[in-house]
């Protein structure tokens, strides 16, 4: 009953009623609209300088050689390092945005309809550039697969059902032509096409940015009443009613979560961003970090105006240094180094990496989980001392 009362009260506090409610609920929609409007006519050049990548050819076929040699012609990649004995880590450390490995039998597997893909190690300090590499090579693989289907269908029409020996011959005859078709007829590596891929990366970049804003803004708004609740005796009065002040914090956590969940889901759906387990974990960690951070700030400052000012300042810093307004890698060395560990960069990384890449994301998760644990541990004594001091 008391928890329900708190939930009802916190929804009223959050939305304010009347025209403010409408404005508040419209905010996520306005952000998405502004984002999409701002992306009209935008190309990746606006957000990306040329950058180096590394390529490792483990297939060593004529086709893989062709594929790799065409990368040298792409202006977006200012340097293509042909990797030999270096590890992926060493190449990323050296500043490559990604290491693309063409695995052994890659082209044969494609034509054999086996599941296969180039292996890409991404530099998460350059998430925006990494997004371009990911979407570009994703497109190549898709095109090759589509060509394979066409070739296979054509071969069946021409030769009927194929045995292994005939299939091998067809593979030899058709593969080179099909690769050439994929690379030239469909113009995968033209700059325009590449910028379109960059636009996909930019879409992820904006998605991560707006979600980060919501992750920070909603808890900040929800917790703006905490200084007055502790400082004006509201918490004490609630205790006398038999409630616990921790229940009111829990209620704010629940309401803030709902107000974050709905617009975030909307943005993921509108932008067609796949919600992997990794991304879900990143979003939950981000939310908990944000809530605990603003809770501690509101308890330390003990003043609603100062708490809001400090909160908004921190929010802007996280968004700026995390690369929400401009890719972190382009903000200079200092910001570039930390952007991947702040919310926007981390969410973008989680959007890019495969759903099970928890090991790669662990340092970034820890950058949110450890402060969350510290803030959560600090909150309880701060609440107790706030009530005692007031009384």
């Amino acid at each position, binding site marked *: *009953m*008391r928890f*329900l*009362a*708190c939930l*009802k*009260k916190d929804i*009223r*506090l959050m939305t*304010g*009623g009347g025209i403010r409610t409408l404005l508040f609920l419209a905010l996520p929609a306005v952000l998405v609209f502004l984002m999409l409007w701002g992306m009209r006519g935008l190309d990746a050049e606006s957000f990306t300088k040329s950058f180096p990548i590394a390529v490792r050819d483990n297939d060593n076929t004529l086709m893989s050689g062709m594929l790799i040699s065409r990368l040298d012609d792409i202006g977006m990649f200012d340097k293509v390092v042909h990797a030999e004995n270096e590890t992926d880590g060493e190449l990323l450390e050296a500043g490559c945005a990604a290491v693309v490995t063409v695995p052994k039998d890659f082209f044969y597997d494609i034509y054999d309809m086996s599941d296969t893909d180039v292996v890409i190690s991404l530099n998460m300090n350059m998430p925006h550039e990494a997004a371009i590499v990911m979407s570009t090579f994703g497109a190549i693989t898709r095109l090759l697969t589509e060509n394979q289907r066409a070739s296979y269908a054509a071969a069946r029409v021409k030769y009927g059902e194929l045995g292994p020996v005939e299939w091998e011959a067809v593979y030899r005859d058709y593969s080179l032509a099909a690769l050439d078709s994929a690379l030239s007829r469909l113009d995968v590596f033209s700059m325009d096409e590449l910028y379109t891929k960059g636009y996909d990366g930019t879409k992820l970049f904006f998605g991560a940015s707006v979600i980060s804003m919501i992750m920070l803004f909603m808890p900040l708004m929800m917790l703006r*009443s905490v200084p*007055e609740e502790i*400082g*004006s*005796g*509201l918490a*004490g*009065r*609630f*205790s*006398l*009613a*038999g*409630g616990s002040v921790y229940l009111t914090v829990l209620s704010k956590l629940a309401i803030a979560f709902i107000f974050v969940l709905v617009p975030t889901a909307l943005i993921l759906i509108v932008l067609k961003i796949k919600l992997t387990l990794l991304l879900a974990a990143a979003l939950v960690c981000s939310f908990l970090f944000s809530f605990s951070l603003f809770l501690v700030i509101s308890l330390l400052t003990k003043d609603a105006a100062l708490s809001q000012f400090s909160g908004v300042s921190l929010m802007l810093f996280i968004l700026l240094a995390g690369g929400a307004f401009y890719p972190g890698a382009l903000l200079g060395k200092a910001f570039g180094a930390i952007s991947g560990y702040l919310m926007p960069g981390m969410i973008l990384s989680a959007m890019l990496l495969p759903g099970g890449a928890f090991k790669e994301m662990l340092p970034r998760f820890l950058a949110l989980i450890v402060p969350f644990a510290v803030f959560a541990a600090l909150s309880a004594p701060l609440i107790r001392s706030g*009530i*005692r001091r*007031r*009384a």
Partner: protein
Amino acid sequence: MDAPVLSLKDIVLSYGAERVLDSVSLDVYPGEVLGVRGVNGAGKSTLLGIMAGLIAPDSGTRTVSPELKSRIALVPQEIALYPSLTGRQNLEFWAEAYGLKGAPKKARIGYLLKELNLQDKARKRVETYSGGMQRRLNMAAALVVTPKLLLLDEPTVGLDTESVSIMLSLITRLKNAGCAVVLVSHAGDEMKLACDRVLELKDGRLL
């Protein structure tokens, strides 16, 4: 004489090196209005906090009668209300926090708004209220359930004559209904009007 609803025995409390309360003992009986007078900083609000059970003393004992459970109401000196909510929404929250719902909740809120002359402003945000109206609503929020012990911290500070009159008449009615009232203030006049007995708190000790 009835048994006291609240007893404090040898209460001691210090904030750092400063001793705020020193061997304070008192009893509060049902149906009485007890005044505690003292200058600013004498420890009156802290004493109320201990009576309410919100502050644990360094030493001494606080005993309350079992019937007081969830029936202690505190009206703090600050306005303990949500300014961005309306008067009615504030009362609804406190009524629900005390477990009231449905028709009894509606009836109680209607009664309090009428009793404290706030019906006309019930749907307005508290931040738009005058100081006197906010204090009356602050009182109403404490009375959403009929208390057995009402603790009032400087209840008439900043009030106009009409609001003082409404407050004191409400206190008298509560007393007549058997509620124990503790009123702390630095002003003597209202004490004389409302209290059955008055204690003086000076330098943390009751005189």
